[in-house]
């Protein structure tokens, strides 16, 4: 076995092992959430996953970014065929192992590589426009305050790495093309890299070989690095979008969750003969969510899936009228806190109270109370994330555990309780309207 095969295999094994470890960590973190049944209605779920995740249906509400995103998405998927070839080459020391597909009179392999080049070009183009939208034309939803710092760098790192990885492909092809042409071996042209050939013509065969080799390794290395970068990045959506849409809420958006724990208490209050089922000692009873462990696993998966695109925030009536609330920030905060809790567990073996919580340290009451529960964020999200559900669970904690509702809302509660209406009118006057015809 050649040295390069050994290096490749070592790289391959360590990158895969690291990836598996990372994925298990994410899985463990997601499962810190509470149970929620989301595996019913399988048929509908497959359908919505095909339409929304695979088919990008909701992206097309905004055509320009949708088309550019489609370039990157399709390009990414197809170029993986070439990456597969690179893996085989790397492991067995072959060179372009699929080139046997170049048949006499029908150079299928060259066509394949040619079309990958076109896709790689579209990926590069898409990423370049995305970089411009983020850094030069500054599309509003892409430069908001909550993206300052790491999220902004994260986005740029992803786009620049994708461009570099694609460029290494072009340069590799161009270097080989130059040698081939010199030896009169390969007549057919590659659609993008042929334009790089003139720049390389002064380099010796030996030099070209080194360039091609270096590009190959750069590409391989880039792919492995990218794989493991995903887990700490918003780019994780390329994996999680699929399960996240599959397990999405299928009920009407206006239907909020029913708190079973409350139902038992209310039943016991209304009917003295009712005995509530014994509480589960493993899950401390808490009304609403104080921290990430009080959310459901699906809400935590949502947080890992969020790609920080800000479509939700740009449709949010509270945010658009200058309030502090941003549904995207709700998702980012949930993920950040979940990561913090995960690290805490990694360090201590189990979660040790760190005096912090999602409610308060990350998301403030001012944000929560600005929400109109209009569902615009839920409707907009291209990967069917539900920020509203988290907002309501956090409100529940503020109200039911901390009695910390705004004064006017406490007045409204009192009215509902005493008069059966949110205003201070007597229930006995409810039918007065009929006397005013």
């Amino acid at each position, binding site marked *: 076995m050649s040295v390069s095969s050994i290096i490749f295999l070592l790289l391959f094994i360590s990158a895969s092992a690291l990836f598996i470890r990372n994925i298990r960590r994410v899985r463990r973190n997601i499962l810190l959430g509470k149970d929620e049944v989301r595996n019913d209605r399988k048929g509908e779920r497959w359908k919505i996953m095909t339409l929304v995740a695979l088919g990008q249906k909701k992206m097309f509400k905004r055509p320009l970014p949708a088309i550019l995103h489609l370039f990157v998405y399709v390009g990414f998927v197809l170029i993986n065929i070439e990456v597969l070839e690179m893996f085989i080459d790397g492991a067995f020391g072959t060179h372009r192992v699929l080139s046997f597909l170049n048949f006499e009179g029908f150079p299928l392999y060259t066509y394949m590589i040619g079309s990958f080049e076109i896709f790689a070009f579209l990926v590069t183009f898409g990423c370049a426009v995305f970089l411009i939208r983020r850094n030069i034309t500054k599309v509003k939803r892409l430069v908001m305050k909550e993206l300052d710092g790491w999220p902004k760098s994260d986005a740029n790192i992803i786009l620049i790495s994708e461009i570099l990885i694609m460029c290494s492909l072009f340069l590799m092809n161009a270097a080989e093309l130059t040698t081939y042409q010199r030896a009169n071996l390969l007549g057919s042209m590659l659609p993008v890299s042929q334009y790089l050939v003139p720049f390389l013509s002064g380099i010796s065969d030996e030099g070209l070989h080194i360039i091609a080799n270096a590009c190959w390794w750069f590409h391989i290395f880039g792919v492995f690095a990218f794989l493991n970068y995903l887990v700490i990045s918003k780019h994780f959506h390329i994996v999680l979008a699929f399960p996240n849409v599959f397990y999405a809420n299928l009920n009407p958006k206006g239907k909020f969750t029913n708190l079973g724990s409350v139902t038992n208490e209310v039943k016991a209050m209304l009917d003295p003969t009712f005995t509530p089922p014994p509480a589960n000692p493993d899950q401390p009873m808490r009304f609403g969510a104080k921290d990430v462990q009080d959310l459901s696993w699906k809400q935590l998966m949502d947080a890992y899936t969020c790609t920080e695109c800000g479509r939700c925030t740009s449709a949010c009536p509270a945010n658009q009228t200058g309030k*502090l609330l941003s549904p995207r920030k709700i998702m980012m905060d949930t993920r950040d806190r979940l990561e913090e809790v995960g690290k805490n567990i990694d360090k201590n073996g189990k979660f040790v109270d760190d005096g912090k919580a999602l409610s308060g340290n990350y998301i403030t009451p001012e944000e929560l109370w600005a929400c109109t529960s209009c569902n615009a964020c839920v409707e907009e999200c291209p990967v069917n994330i539900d920020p509203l559900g988290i907002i309501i669970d956090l409100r529940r904690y503020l109200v039911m555990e901390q009695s910390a509702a705004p004064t006017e809302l406490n007045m409204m509660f009192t009215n509902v309780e005493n008069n059966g209406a949110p205003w201070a009118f007597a229930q006995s006057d409810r039918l007065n309207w009929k006397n005013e015809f």
Partner: protein
Amino acid sequence: MEIQVKTYAEYLASGESPEILFWVGCAGSFDDRAKKITRAIVRILDHVGMKFAVLGTEESCTGDPAKRAGNEFLFQMQAMNNITVLNGYNVKKIVTGCPHCFNTLKNEYPALGGNYEVIHHTQLVQELIDAGKLKVQGGAFKGKKITYHDACYLGRANSVYEAPREAIKALDADLAEMKRSREKGFCCGAGGAQMFKEAEKGNKEVNVERTEEALELTPSVIATACPFCMTMMSDGVKHFNKESSVKVLDIAEIVVGGLKE
């Protein structure tokens, strides 16, 4: 002839049972502007001769504002008490005057033991028009520009987008759409219990933003289907001093304006 409004209890006492329960809602019962919508809905029910009942003083808040504000206890107390009343009368079908009541009764009561067929009044209007029972003509609205503001709890929350629009179209009115409509509709600012509190600090009121968008179309009528949207949009129109040229009307009121005798 005077319009008869009977309660469920009165129906049962006379040995009859109504076809449908009209769930009026708190705004429809107490808010002066919304009471006019309530009477418009009753006019429509009366016009088609539908046997409807109200709960009257036995009706109580569905609990929607409590639930959206995070007070699940209060919500479930309200819900269970209401369900006891509704099940006691063996209610089968409900029409509501408010998208919030509609959503709560339809989606959130079943888990607590309240199973009814629930429709919003705009859906009833559409059904009646489709069935030829409700005949409307353009009348005062013919050719007038009307824009419809989607209520979140009717639209996105329950995917009811067409029923209110069909009613406007049936009047030969010119239905003009705002940039943000249907799935993209922009909230009036009242939902999620905001109606009952001051807005958080910001740089604009949500209802002003929305009314501005509606006024760009220079409509003669802004149509709503929710008593809270009604309040918010009316306040918005006042904010721009446009009360004299732009009316805010509920779909039910518009339909009553176009009823054929």
